[in-house]
């Protein structure tokens, strides 16, 4: 208080109050002297004259106050200060009320600030690129990948973009002479930096003229933070040669600190020219039109070109490409989107989710306001006598209302500050959070000016919102009646504003409780749904052999050595290799044709399965059960006929049934006939919410792949197995950079969206529950305390417990029931939206319904318990004696 006072005084000093004070004092003194002179002349003594002058002048202090107001306008800082001081005194007198009110608001505003900061960080925040408004990500088909020749055609044939750049996310190894390490980077087209308008921080950035065909540009550009942390800002780094995936690359420059690439969620350590893709990865796909591996393309639209025109232009290129290369080109359409969140693929669901959270957070705040509105109205009713007295003593209604509003705004600002502080703490934690074990998430959630502004604005708005609730009450108050009759009054049967508020609030809380239950239930189910694999008991390791310099034939040889080495670990049941485990957010799709199809354009494809390259033993190691036929053996190699294992959905779609599939043939994109030798169960491949999808498994030996995942199933402790695996890898090749993780942990990342949804809804649901408890409690406690005397009389006249309870709490319980039912229905409707994020989140689940009803019932019981006890323990004698 002292502190606040001093600040306020300082503010007042700004308005030169003290100078004015002296002036007013002087003038009043001069007036009194002049008057006293006159009175003295009429025969009074000087002392008596001065006394009379003072009396005639009237309330000196009051007029001084009025003079200040007149001199500086009515709404002076001064008045405000005194009102604030008064409010603080009033609030200090009822600390319980103040703490509950501030706490409620702190929760609600904190939640809003946090959700807004997240929204700000991942949806509203720009990439900080020059002229970002005209920058678009080009999206194609269902995931956006294009082939490099496609990109070159898009770049050279379009007439709508200033230029189009392409980039791909890679994870190469780097060897600077000490420890080899893995890092994350972009392979980018030569025109990438020019297209974005990025100037080097140091040295130079690669450019279009560096590209002279495949593998012609062995240059690397370092990201600023990587340069800063790993090369200690060494300016002599330019010109040095480093090993990327065991290939020599020359460092030519460093990007500026503000540049974090063109994706919001990751900051690349290095940039490598896209034309060196084959050399870096040991692939042969740069010039293959059918291999769609280029992650994303971006470009600035020319001035005056609309996104729709740009997309139409690209689609006409797409039509041309399809006509020219019918085999290789898919029928996908082009769209333009915002680049930061990988266009609409990630952006749309994220925006929908965060937007939904924001809405829920606002609902929480609304509920909190309703809650506080009820509290304030109840308080205003209790203070009716005080207000009446002040009115009777000549205070204006205007002044009293301002006083009440000042109290409300003070509370809301205090709540806002506490809430903001809490949310800033959580933001720090959130920024450091790495939900994906392998992927360096880079989303700094920082409180910037807009977050502060939103928090303060919300606080002020809610203060005004719940502050005006009791206004009608005050305006209606008739001082004479209240003073005469005392504050208690008719237990009105009419629906009051307070009731409406309480019902609204309970309904909002019921919505939150219902949707969080729906989400939790969905998450529980998705944890137990059939994944088509059994991660429990499996440790997986990833080693990209291309990083260690393996190329061509040596890859297959090394993979076989790895397989054999892992089998020798004690306690290991089965070992399998794969190019990629399912549910690792990175599945490769392909197209297949019936064996009769001769026109192999993608529109004639019979299925679009996910494709996995796996070794013998993979299905046993992964826990995928074989339904018919056989798995792979080491004889299914390059010299043997081409074979495949498919899942049940593939068999159904391509051959009609499982028995029909085994032994039969289908055609792959290159026209080769492949025989199905086995059928395995269906599973989940890309995410948990996907429908049944066909999947195709090919022998690793028949389609070699350098990035190797090893699945080791063992009954031993995963940590021991992991350690043993690491030793084996080291024995095989010291240069291998291996990532080892237990499979259940690795697979968590695929559950991330539903976990996130459940967590946030759970937290919001909890807040909703807390708010409804305090709301109902406040209402019930208030109605009991108002009717204590009536209840006392009832008890004295012999009312039974149920009757007393019904009289005391009937209304609160009725309102609770109405609100809960309304909220439940709304919640079930809202949960339909949830179904898209949380797997199997069905709102029609009887358990959810039961749970929601039970939860609301419990909340009601909890909230009315204490008031009910109080009502029952009323001692009529004390009450009747009281007044």
């Amino acid at each position, binding site marked *: 208080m002292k502190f606040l006072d001093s600040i306020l005084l300082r503010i007042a000093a700004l308005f030169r109050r003290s100078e004015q004070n002296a002036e007013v004092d002087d*003038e009043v003194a*001069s*007036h009194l002297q*002049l*008057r006293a002179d006159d009175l003295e002349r009429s025969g009074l003594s000087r002392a008596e004259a001065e006394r009379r002058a003072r009396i005639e*002048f*009237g309330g*000196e202090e009051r*007029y001084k106050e009025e003079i200040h107001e*007149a001199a500086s306008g009515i709404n002076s800082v001064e008045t405000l200060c005194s009102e604030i001081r008064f409010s603080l005194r009033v609030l200090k007198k009822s600390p319980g009320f103040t703490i509950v009110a501030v706490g409620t608001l702190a929760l609600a505003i904190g939640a809003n600030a946090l959700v807004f900061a997240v929204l700000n960080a991942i949806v509203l925040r720009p990439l900080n690129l020059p002229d970002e408004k005209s920058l678009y990500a080009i999206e194609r088909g269902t995931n956006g990948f294009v082939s490099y020749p496609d990109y070159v055609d898009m770049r050279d044939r379009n007439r709508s973009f200033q230029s189009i750049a392409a980039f791909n996310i890679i994870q190469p190894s780097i060897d600077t002479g000490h420890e080899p390490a893995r890092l994350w980077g972009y392979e980018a087209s030569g025109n990438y930096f020019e297209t974005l308008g990025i100037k080097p921080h140091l040295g130079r950035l690669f450019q279009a003229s560096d590209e002279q065909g495949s593998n012609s540009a062995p240059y690397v550009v370092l990201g600023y933070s990587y340069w800063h942390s790993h090369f200690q800002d060494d300016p002599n780094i330019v010109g040095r040669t480093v090993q990327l995936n065991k290939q020599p690359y020359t460092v030519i420059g460093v990007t500026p600190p503000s540049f974090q690439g063109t994706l919001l969620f990751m900051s690349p350590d290095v940039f490598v020219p896209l034309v060196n893709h084959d050399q870096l990865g040991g692939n042969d796909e740069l010039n293959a039109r059918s291999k769609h591996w280029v992650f994303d393309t971006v470009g600035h639209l020319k001035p005056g070109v609309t996104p729709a025109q740009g997309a139409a232009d690209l689609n006409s290129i797409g039509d041309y490409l399809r006509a020219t290369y019918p085999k290789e080109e898919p029928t996908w359409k082009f769209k333009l989107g915002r680049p930061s969140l990988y266009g609409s693929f990630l952006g749309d669901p994220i925006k929908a989710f965060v937007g939904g959270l924001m809405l829920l957070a606002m609902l929480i705040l609304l509920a909190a306001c309703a809650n506080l509105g009820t509290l304030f109205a109840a308080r205003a009713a209790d203070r009716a006598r005080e207000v009446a007295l002040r009115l009777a003593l000549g205070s204006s209604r205007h002044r009293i209302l301002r006083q009440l509003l000042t109290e409300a705004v003070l509370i809301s600002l205090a709540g806002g500050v506490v809430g903001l502080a809490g949310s800033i703490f959580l933001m720090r934690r959130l920024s450091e959070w790495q939900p994906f074990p392998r992927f360096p998430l880079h989303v700094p959630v920082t409180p910037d000016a807009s977050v502060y502004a939103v928090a303060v604005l919300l606080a002020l708005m809610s203060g005004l919102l719940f502050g005006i609730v009791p206004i009608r009450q005050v305006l209606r108050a008739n001082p004479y009646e209240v003073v005469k009759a005392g504050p208690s009054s008719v237990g009105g049967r009419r629906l009051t504003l307070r009731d409406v508020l309480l019902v609204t609030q309970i309904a909002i809380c019921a919505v939150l409780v219902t949707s969080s239950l729906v989400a939790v239930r969905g998450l529980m189910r998705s944890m137990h749904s059939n994944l088509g694999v059994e991660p429990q008991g499996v440790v997986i390791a990833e080693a990209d052999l291309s990083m260690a310099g393996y190329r061509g034939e040596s890859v297959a040889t090394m993979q076989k050595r790895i397989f054999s080495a892992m089998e020798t670990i004690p306690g290991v049941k089965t070992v399998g290799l794969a190019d990629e485990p399912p549910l690792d957010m990175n599945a490769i799709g392909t197209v297949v044709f019936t064996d009769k199809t001769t026109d192999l354009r993608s529109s004639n494809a019979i299925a679009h399965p996910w494709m996995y390259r796996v070794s013998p033993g993979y299905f046993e190691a992964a826990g995928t059960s074989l339904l018919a036929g056989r798995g792979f053996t080491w004889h299914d190699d390059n010299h043997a006929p081409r074979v495949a294992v498919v899942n049940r959905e593939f068999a159904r779609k391509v051959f009609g049934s499982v028995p029909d599939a085994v032994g039969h043939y289908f055609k792959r994109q290159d026209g080769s006939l492949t025989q199905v030798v086995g059928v395995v169960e269906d599973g989940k491949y890309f995410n948990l919410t996907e429908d049944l999808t066909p999947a195709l498994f090919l022998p690793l030996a028949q389609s070699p792949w350098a990035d190797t995942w090893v699945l080791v199933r063992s009954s031993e402790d995963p940590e021991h197995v992991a350690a043993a695996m690491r030793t084996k890898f080291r024995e095989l090749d010291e240069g291998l950079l291996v990532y080892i993780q237990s499979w259940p942990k690795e697979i968590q990342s695929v559950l991330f969206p539903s976990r996130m949804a459940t967590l946030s809804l759970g937290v919001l649901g909890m807040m909703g529950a807390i708010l409804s408890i305090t709301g109902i409690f406040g209402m019930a406690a208030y109605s009991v305390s108002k009717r204590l005397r009536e209840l006392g009389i009832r008890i004295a006249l012999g009312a039974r417990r149920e009757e007393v309870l019904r009289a005391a709490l009937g209304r609160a319980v009725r309102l609770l029931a109405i609100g809960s039912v309304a909220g439940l229905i709304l919640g079930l409707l809202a949960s339909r939206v949830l179904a898209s994020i949380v797997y199997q989140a069905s709102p029609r689940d009887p358990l959810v319904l039961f749970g929601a009803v039970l939860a609301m019932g419990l909340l009601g019981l909890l909230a009315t318990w204490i008031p009910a006890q109080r009502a029952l323990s009323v001692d009529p004698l004390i009450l009747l004696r009281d007044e």
Partner: protein
Amino acid sequence: MPDQAQLLPGTLDLLILKAVSLGPLHGYGVLLRIGQISGETLLIEQGALYPALFRLVRQGLLKANWGTSENNRRAKFYELTAAGRKRLREETEGWNRLAGAIASALAAQPEEA
């Protein structure tokens, strides 16, 4: 009470402007002058004068300077500004019109139709 509170501010301002228009005055002098020119019928509570004076200064209708009174007391003297003079003219006209209208309204006699 409430009636007076509504009526007073406008008329008090007008009276102050009129009083000061006859020559610079200190606050106490304004009171005496109003009493004198209204034939001692309009009495103003002494303290109530000052908020009005400060308000008029803030509105730029009066200006104030410290000086010395006839009996050698330090006092703040008020005089009309150009804006104050203009306002006085307008307010006087307005007041006369209103007073005339009310007077004739009140003088009306019931008429046979």
